[in-house]
């Protein structure tokens, strides 16, 4: 029979084709990242030029002597033609030269180097907590409330997650401070000093995303639990945990992952508010201060850092999705 050679050549072609799809996916995704980065960098550059009036005058205040203002203008290269400035800006970015803060005169890169780790810790820890809570919770509630079982559990879960998902993180932070720090004295009110100081800010950031994510996990699980292949798994009389975790969960993670990527992005942004509640020495409190003080070089750099962070997260999520569910993401079928 000729079955074997045919099968082999078919397989060879299939791998080529497969590889091709991957290459195309990688190219498309890289291009998108680069275009997004360019948009971000350009926006950050023009942001300062879009500020009405003279940004340096605004930064230094109406009482600053005129020669100081013009010296500062010159130092920042604001006297050059726009395109030249843009070129300098791009070159500065590539060499890590982001200029000096108007307020403190420290190099912007140094300030960011000091502040970024605190923010990154906060965002990543909160994300980890949200995922670790949301997935078991969503799976558990899905299994419990399938087909109108345990209606009261379902109602309690849905309404509490809707409400928790709608509570803004900084309001939650304030509530936490009141309950756990002021009233119960369990945890510090603010600052970043030891493990206990992480608990409240991380929770304030994590609760909303955990609520949203667990709802999505539940909905995804419910639809997977009704599929024919889950009926097959049940017909094999596998144990409950095996049916739910091995057969259902992997098929429910695709949408979950997409959403969790978006959540991580908004978590990064959410740190700005939460840091201000807890006087957390990260980028969030710095950017607010520098916006109020009109410290434009610093603002520009921090906007870039946040933006790049979000873009990287989105890219990583897309790549992970492509690896986990190649058929739905990059159209391999």
């Amino acid at each position, binding site marked *: 029979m000729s079955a074997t050679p045919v*099968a082999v050549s078919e397989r060879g072609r299939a791998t080529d084709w497969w590889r091709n799809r991957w290459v195309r996916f990688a190219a498309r995704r890289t291009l998108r990242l680069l*275009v*997004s980065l360019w*948009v971000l960098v350009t926006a950050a550059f023009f*942001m300062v030029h*879009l*500020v009405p009036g003279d940004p340096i005058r605004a930064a230094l205040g109406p009482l600053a002597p005129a020669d100081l203002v013009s010296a500062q203008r010159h130092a920042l290269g604001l006297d050059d033609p726009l395109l030249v400035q843009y070129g300098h800006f791009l070159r500065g970015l590539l060499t890590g030269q982001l200029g000096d803060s108007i307020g403190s005169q420290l190099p912007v890169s140094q300030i960011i180097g000091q502040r970024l780790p605190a923010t990154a810790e906060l965002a990543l820890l909160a994300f980890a907590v949200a995922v670790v809570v949301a997935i078991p919770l969503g799976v558990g509630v899905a299994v419990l409330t*399938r*087909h*109108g*079982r345990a209606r009261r559990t379902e109602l309690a879960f849905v309404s509490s997650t*809707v409400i928790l998902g*709608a509570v*803004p993180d*900084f*309001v939650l932070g*304030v*509530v936490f*401070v*009141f309950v756990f720090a*002021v009233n119960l004295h369990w945890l510090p*009110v603010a600052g970043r000093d030891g493990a206990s100081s992480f608990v409240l800010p991380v929770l304030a950031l994590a609760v909303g995303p955990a609520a949203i994510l667990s709802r999505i996990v539940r909905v995804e699980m419910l639809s997977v639990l*009704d599929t*024919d*292949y889950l*009926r*097959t*798994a*049940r*017909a*094999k*009389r*596998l*144990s409950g945990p*095996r049916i739910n975790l091995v*057969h259902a969960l*992997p*098929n429910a993670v695709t949408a979950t992952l997409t959403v969790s990527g*978006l959540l991580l*992005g908004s978590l*990064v*942004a*959410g740190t*700005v*508010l939460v840091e*201000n*509640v807890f006087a957390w020495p990260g980028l969030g409190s710095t*950017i*607010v201060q520098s*916006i*109020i003080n009109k410290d*434009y070089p610093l*603002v520009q750099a921090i*906007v870039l850092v*946040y*933006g790049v962070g*979000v*873009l990287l997260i989105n890219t990583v999520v897309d790549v992970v999705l492509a690896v986990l569910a190649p*058929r739905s993401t990059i159209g391999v*079928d």
Partner: protein
Amino acid sequence: MQRWSRAARTPLGIVGFGLLAVTLFLAVFAPLIWHRQAGDYDTDNLLAGASGEHWFGTDNLGRDIFYRVLVATRLSITLAVSATLIAVVVGVVLGAAPTLLGRWIGRPLIGLVNILVAFPGLLLVLFFAIVFGVGAKGAVLAVGLAGAPTFARLGHTLMAAVAGRDFVAAARASGVRPGRILVRHLLPNIAEPLIVNATIGAGGVLLSFAGLSFLGLGVQSPDYDWGRMMQDGLGGIYVHPLAALAPGAAVIIAGLAFNLSGEAVARALGVQVDVAWRAVVTPTRHRARAAAPPPADDVDPDLVLDVANLRVAFPHGGDVIRPVRGVTFQVRRGEAVGIVGESGSGKSLTALAVADLLEFPAQVDADRLAVLGTDLHDGTDHRHLLGTSVAMVFQDPMTSFNPAHRVGAQLAEAARAHQGATRKQAWRRAVDRLSAVHIHDPHRRARQYPFEFSGGMRQRAMIGMGLMGAPKLIVADEPTTALDVTVQRQVLDMLREVRTTDDVALILISHDVSVVAEVCDRVMVMYAGRVVEDLPAADLAVAARHPYTRALVAAVPDMHSDLDAPLATIFGQPVDPAHVPDGCAYAARCPLADRRCRTQEPTLTSGVACWHPGESLPVPHARDAREVDA
């Protein structure tokens, strides 16, 4: 509008619209009524706690916090609504660009929108806040523009759907200006989803705005909104927590008001799905306790399956429907029993019930339901018994395998679960079973994913999966319906082969009489949840006595003796399980029906449930196909 009012009457809508009404009322009237109380300095009570005089206490200038929260509603809501309007208007204009201005301008704009949407809203807000500067006006612009990309994308998607329609093309062809097309033709058609999303969006905008004011970038004193009040209260949280918590609660409530109202309308506008009916289509796990069954004194060792008075019920609305109403039958070792009937006859539910695969809210009751002499309703766990001795084959092989796992692993796990096989043993057995069902190159195939298998191969692999244990009974529910004709044959041959080599009993569910007649020894005909005839397969064509069985046989061309007669279908509609008539359920379609048939239900006696078994039918009993409405 009517649908909006219906949305307002759902529980979600009542809460949402209730909160929204209160919020809007306060936004309009609170400053008029309580302006004075909110501005008064009570210098004797600076930073006072809650009291009868000041419910939420006072701030550092002695102003009453309760009234200030109420009065702040107007500014908070006005700013949020203005920002939302900016977001919607800018978004719709951006989103309409490709439709109105053509691809050269539109495509890059939408590309930009897609990039912007990927950034979290708060980041965009901060960006614009830098450009527009600190203060309420700048914040409205910032929050509004930051929300625009989301609405641009939404508007683009909605308008792209409408733009293809004739009236838009006609308007464009006749040279109507783009702005006019947008206002006159596009907007009215996308208004509903846009308003719903804007309502939900307003909730989010409110929160962003509160955040911005909280950061000190939004509203500046002496004005105050809730975010500003939280910021002012946070410093004194030790002394006076309510000053920060009360405006926080207001933010949450107002945010929920917009959110829930929008959700409620969105749901009301969406397609209604009748949950109870879904439950019938995809049965769920739960088994009602059957009345203690009489212990079987002498278990016939040859009896693979023993079913007496099996009933399946589902809650439906406030009612209960009973798609299976007392089915009794037995299957012996190696016997092949076919169950035929139209869809809705209860045949598949019967199969799932005997395999113990029906779940809540389905209720399965039976006087006896025993597999290999073991009563399934005795309250103990029969996982291993069923897992090794009952194999299932389902209708659609394309969806019956888990797309996330390799085929071999899906076969192997049964052996691991029930026979204590090691990973290696189980895998070897899986490969062996795949080759037993004639899958070429089983070693390679076992490592593949289901989507790499053809439909016929999957169905054979499914049978192979059932053969991992030592099955005594295979339940095949329409195993060939989803396959094309040549593959159907393969699968039927496979089932027959398995049956004869391993002496396995088979229950074959089908709506196709010829398939059943070919494979089975015995046929049960089901109608409206009951068995109406139980006869040897060989008798189908020649000795069927029930009018329904005869109609089924007549409907199959190659079993019909008179090939010149027109192709027959069965006249009338199957019985709706929710409305089973009195008397014989088939009476409405039966040419022999008389008064007794309509009032008294015949029971299954000597293989047939009919008051007029075997009586000759007036010709033609099955009408010409043309007369039956499709």
